[in-house]
């Protein structure tokens, strides 16, 4: 499964990738460092099946990235992985098309649970 991980922190991209590898060892992980890079990588990888995105990023934040992806009609679910845990932000993201939400900090088991819930696996 191809997974796109979008986060301006290289640390967080590695943490997420390491967690993904624990329960999806065959995952093909594509990384992006902001929303613009994320959309470029999304367009170049149309076989992506799952997208994990931060919210607060420079050069196009996660909410704008989410909206751009949803606008394309692509079926890959977007899960927001962010410190923005206020209810109003969660509602905004879900209404904008996010399929699930992971609050930072998180454990690998929490991430796994949210992905399983989203993908039905």
């Amino acid at each position, binding site marked *: 499964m191809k997974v796109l991980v979008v986060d301006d922190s290289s*640390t967080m991209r590695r943490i997420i990738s390491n967690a993904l590898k624990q329960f999806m060892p065959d995952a093909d992980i594509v990384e992006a460092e902001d929303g613009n890079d994320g959309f470029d990588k999304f367009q170049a990888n149309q076989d992506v099946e799952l997208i994990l995105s931060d919210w607060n990023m420079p050069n196009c934040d996660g909410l704008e990235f989410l909206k751009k992806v949803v606008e394309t009609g692509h079926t890959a679910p977007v899960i927001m992985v962010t*410190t923005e845990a206020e209810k109003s932000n969660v509602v905004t993201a879900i209404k904008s098309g996010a399929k699930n939400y992971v609050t930072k900090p*998180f454990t690998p088991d929490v991430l796994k649970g949210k992905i399983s819930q989203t993908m039905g696996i």
Partner: protein
Amino acid sequence: MKVDVNLINPFIAATTNALEMMAMVKPERKKVYLKTDNVLIGDISGIMGLSGDVSGSIILSFEAKTACKIVGNMLGASYDTIDDDVKDGIQEIVNLVAGQAKTMLADTEYHFQISIPTCIIGANHQVNHKKGVPCVVAEFDLEGSPFTLEVSIAPKSS
């Protein structure tokens, strides 16, 4: 200017929570006091600005070996010196702390936005917080090494 503990405590709780969950370490909070100088105790400090209904900044300051251990635990790797990975890792930790505290304070009068984190490297580095705003220091012990959380924050109306 008085210090509102309701404004400070979420940052202290968030520090412990972020390090326990992401770096699998258990910091022990020691003393809490008002800071009287501008010198940070560590070799690397992660800094985050806060704005909105409150303004100010928070800083997490670590010795090099502590920062290396924390980031090494987060990434499942080993670091001997402060390199780009360690710098980014410490910035991410301060981002997590600020983000959690922001959520804890969201339903209070202390709603704020956070900036992109930065870090400063070097022994005896100094940072000036906002003039006139008290800076509260929470000292922690992590496996025998100290680190500090500095919170300099005040309601915008003050």
